[in-house]
């Protein structure tokens, strides 16, 4: 037994030995062993109820002699296994030393066939019009374990087909397989126990508590975890067949939690945003409010032209003009907590090249919900600290900037994505100075700007954010931006190289990272390509004294994070 992690226990799955952490249930143990045990009600982040019975397996344990306690050895010299006469559910069976399971025996297959037949007898034949088709566990397992023909000649049960459970979730009770995942989610995760079953037996029906609505900001997660098409998103239903959708890994920019997402798109159009599992950040959940952020990318307010004094130009022209203005000095830079780490780094370079009088960031705050929306609604304030763009936490009001304009101290402002009229700088005041504005949508700052650079949204570009845990996380472009609009790294890079005379500006995050590797000690070993899918913790201990505003959330505890930081520091 040398060389093994002492904490692991050995389990035998279909006669092969695997080592798993103690407490692992057999669905997960099989997964670790590369086998799937089909299941419906089990969900790794919810309590175990064991109601669907799809995960039945054979369970055995090594036999011991009752009187001596010695293992009983069979003719082959192996310890004899006592197989239980009844199948057991994998989801509620936890690893114990020497446990044996069969996941593929005659009996196991027969159990699965039986459960599948039962689930289908009263199930409607809706697949052709059902949104779940293509990502439906019932469809998938029916292909593996279905009988292929029906023995059911009775009338099927009739249940409500279209019940609005809340503003965003629609229920088809006939498709519901009564797995109770949605009920458990509302109770255990969203802490809004509004769903439940009424009636008994096969007539059991999911419903919302009378007088209540399923309207908490996490309601759409029930749609994701519903294994069938019983719960559908009112926004997404009937819009697109899921097998046409491309999934791009991304990060939700709603707050500093940094929820991991998939952007699901087809032919350059986003249809929905779904959570991407990250057990260190958001588990398998996402707030409803984060799912709709993509909706603004196609609006009329979108900026699509590089302009100087309102006339269209190309990016090089805009960069040249901006450089000229910036070189005149008396510059204030307003960065953004929504910009990526790479953009913040380049912005910082620009600020130092022009010896900016001030660099500020605009804070965005709200109430944290203790789960996946934090009080800091900027996704990347920590990125601005790491890149040296700022050294203290941002404020909501740029009153200092307003008086600096008033006094004539500031003559040029570069704003990256922020509408300054929303943070204490009046439009009339802005008209007194040269404004260079980088932004994705038009606003009053854009209107008065001399030079405008249209930018891409997080859905259209690649980059990284650093969340409240100081976890660096990567997002990739899901859809192309408006025609002719270059990635923000490119525009900033061009401007930067004019200002500091560098020959080849970066064209993507890889190039910026090559620079940051040498410039920023905490980033020294990181290469953009290889940032792990679950992100990587950055040593942020240097900023630990700052009064960050986030409270507790799902996997973040401000006090605890200090300890985690200390460990990251030690390990470096």
């Amino acid at each position, binding site marked *: 037994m040398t060389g093994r992690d002492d904490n692991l226990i050995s389990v035998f799955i279909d006669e092969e030995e695997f080592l798993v952490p103690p407490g692992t249930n057999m669905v997960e143990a099989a997964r670790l062993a590369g086998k799937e045990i089909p299941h419906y009600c089990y969900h790794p982040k919810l309590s175990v109820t064991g109601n669907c019975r799809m995960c039945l397996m054979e369970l055995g344990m090594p036999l011991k002699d009752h009187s001596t306690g010695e293992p009983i050895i069979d003719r082959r010299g192996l310890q004899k296994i006592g197989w239980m*006469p009844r199948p057991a559910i994998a989801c*509620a069976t936890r690893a114990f030393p020497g446990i044996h399971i069969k996941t593929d025996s005659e009996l196991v297959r027969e159990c699965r066939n039986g459960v599948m037949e039962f689930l289908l007898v009263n199930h409607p034949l809706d697949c052709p019009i059902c949104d779940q088709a293509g990502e439906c566990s019932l469809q998938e397992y029916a292909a593996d374990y279905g009988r292929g023909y029906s023995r059911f000649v009775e009338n099927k049960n009739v249940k409500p087909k279209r019940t609005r459970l809340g503003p965003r979730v629609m229920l088809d009770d006939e498709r519901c397989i009564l797995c109770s995942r949605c009920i458990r989610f509302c109770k255990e995760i969203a802490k809004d126990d509004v769903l439940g079953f009424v009636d008994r*037996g096969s007539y059991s029906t999911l419903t919302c508590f009378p007088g209540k609505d399923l309207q908490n900001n996490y309601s759409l997660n029930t749609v994701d975890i519903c294994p069938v098409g019983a719960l559908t998103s009112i926004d997404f239903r009937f819009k697109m067949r899921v097998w046409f959708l491309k999934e791009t890994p991304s990060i939700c920019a709603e707050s500093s939690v940094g929820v991991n997402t998939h952007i699901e798109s087809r032919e350059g159009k986003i249809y929905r945003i779904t959570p991407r599992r990250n057990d260190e950040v958001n588990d398998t959940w996402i707030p409803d409010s984060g799912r709709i952020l993509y909706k603004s990318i196609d609006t009329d307010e979108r900026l699509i032209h590089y302009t100087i004094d309102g006339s269209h130009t190309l990016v090089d022209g805009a960069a040249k003009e901006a450089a000229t203005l910036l070189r005149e000095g008396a510059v204030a830079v307003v960065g953004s907590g929504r910009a990526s780490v790479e953009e913040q780094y380049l912005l910082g370079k620009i600020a130092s090249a022009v010896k900016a009088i001030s660099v500020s960031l605009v804070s965005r705050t709200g109430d944290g919900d203790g789960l996946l929306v934090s009080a800091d609604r900027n996704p990347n304030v920590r990125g601005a600290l790491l890149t040296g763009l700022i050294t203290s936490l941002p404020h909501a009001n740029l009153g200092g900037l307003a008086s600096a304009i008033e006094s004539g101290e500031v003559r040029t402002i570069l704003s990256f994505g922020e509408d300054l009229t929303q943070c204490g700088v009046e439009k009339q005041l802005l008209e007194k100075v040269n404004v260079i504005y980088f932004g994705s949508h038009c606003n009053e700052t854009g209107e008065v700007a001399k030079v405008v650079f249209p930018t891409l949204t997080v859905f259209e570009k690649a980059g990284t954010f650093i969340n409240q845990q100081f976890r660096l996380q990567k997002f990739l472009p899901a859809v192309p931006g408006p025609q002719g609009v270059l990635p923000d790294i490119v525009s900033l890079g061009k401007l930067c190289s004019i200002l500091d005379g560098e020959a080849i500006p970066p064209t993507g995050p890889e190039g910026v990272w090559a620079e940051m590797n040498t410039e920023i000690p905490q980033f020294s070993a990181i290469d953009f390509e290889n940032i792990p899918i679950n992100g990587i913790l950055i040593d942020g201990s240097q900023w630990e004294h700052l009064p960050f505003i986030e409270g507790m959330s799902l996997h973040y505890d401000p006090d605890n994070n200090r300890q985690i930081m200390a460990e990251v520091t030690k390990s470096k």
Partner: protein
Amino acid sequence: MPPTEQRIILKFADQPGYANDIECYLRHGGYEMLHKAFDMEPGDICHEVELSRLRGRGGAGFPAGMKWKFLDRKSGKPIYLICNADESEPGTFKDRQIIHKDPHQLIESMMIAAYATGTKLAFVYIREEFPEGALILEKAIEEARAANFVGPKILGSDYSCEIIVHRGAGAYICGEETGLIESLEGKRPYPRIKPPYFPAVLGLYQCPTIVNNVETLCNIKHIIEIGGEAYSHIGTPAATGTRIWCVSGHVRKPGYYEFAGGAITLGELIYDVCEGMRPGRKLKAVIPGGSSAKVLRADERFHGHLKDHTSFDWGLKDIPLDYDSFMAVGSMSGSGGVIVLDDSVDMVEALANLNAFYAHESCGQCTPCREGSLWMKKITSRMCSGEARSEDADLLVSISKQIEGRTICAFGEACSWPTQSFVAKFKDEFVAKASEAQSQATGSENGDRLI
């Protein structure tokens, strides 16, 4: 001469003039055993119960002493005692007699059990359909509290314990102990998965909990009275004490009869105690332990070996009334509800009736029972309305086999055993239904329709 009953639990219940108030109970020696028990160490009481080899009367026949021993005392959590008075198994009506006629016997026994197990709070979970029983119990508990038998500092000791009567809301599944516990917690009575939720470890409010049937608990005071060892000599070694058999159906004298374990045979119960079949009728079948027990056919012969390796060769009438004999013939003594069917009964209709009950009562939590019970009901109902098919009998058995052993609670077996045994033993009638349907005949002519 019919065999005479040996009444211990129902000793006074039907005596003329015996009332269910505390004065009457005290006049008959009531609560003396509570005094005696309070002079004993709790551990010694548990030991006596173990010695008595008392087995559960609620259905499974599990040894009570062993159940009490399983209580997780290391956890330091409070211990709860629950009396299961849900008595919903069709054909069972014994607990009701006890509650209505001798409630103090139950209360005295419960308080002894509570003291012995260190219970913090005791409950009686009584089915909704016993409104009278609930009132009687509440009044009796009030009387017992006034006499310091229940409540704070019982009999001047340091031990305090209340009994709370909780009424169900009309669901059979609340009789299943973990469903009962969920219901008592105010939730839907969805039975819990075992493991991990064994009541003795993670019961009511996730605390160690004992659930015992009314009749089981009533035996406790008698065990204290004569001692566990002496009690174990009543009946047979594997069926100690007495049992109340509830006989219903086509006998001349249905009712409840208390006999020592194994003291009489099924034949004696039906023909001597219950005075046989109605005039002109012949015995056709017996469901021996509540409706979920597998049916036995009148002309069957049973061979095999008992646990003690003795061989047996019995007709239906020869089966001794005890746990293991009914197991040996492939059925069970269950809740003690003996349902007698005569030759007027259409067995397909009888099964349709049972299937309707189980489909109605399935809690619906787990797939096989939820879908299987209703499917079987739909089939047998169709068979009884002139649309039987020749493949139905085998289909029914196949469905029931897909339920049995694969569910969260024993309701899975309860709803599949009737179908399995009815079809196995009366297949000719199921086949006949199909040919009748083919020849356009509808319904049955013999006897009263059961659905």
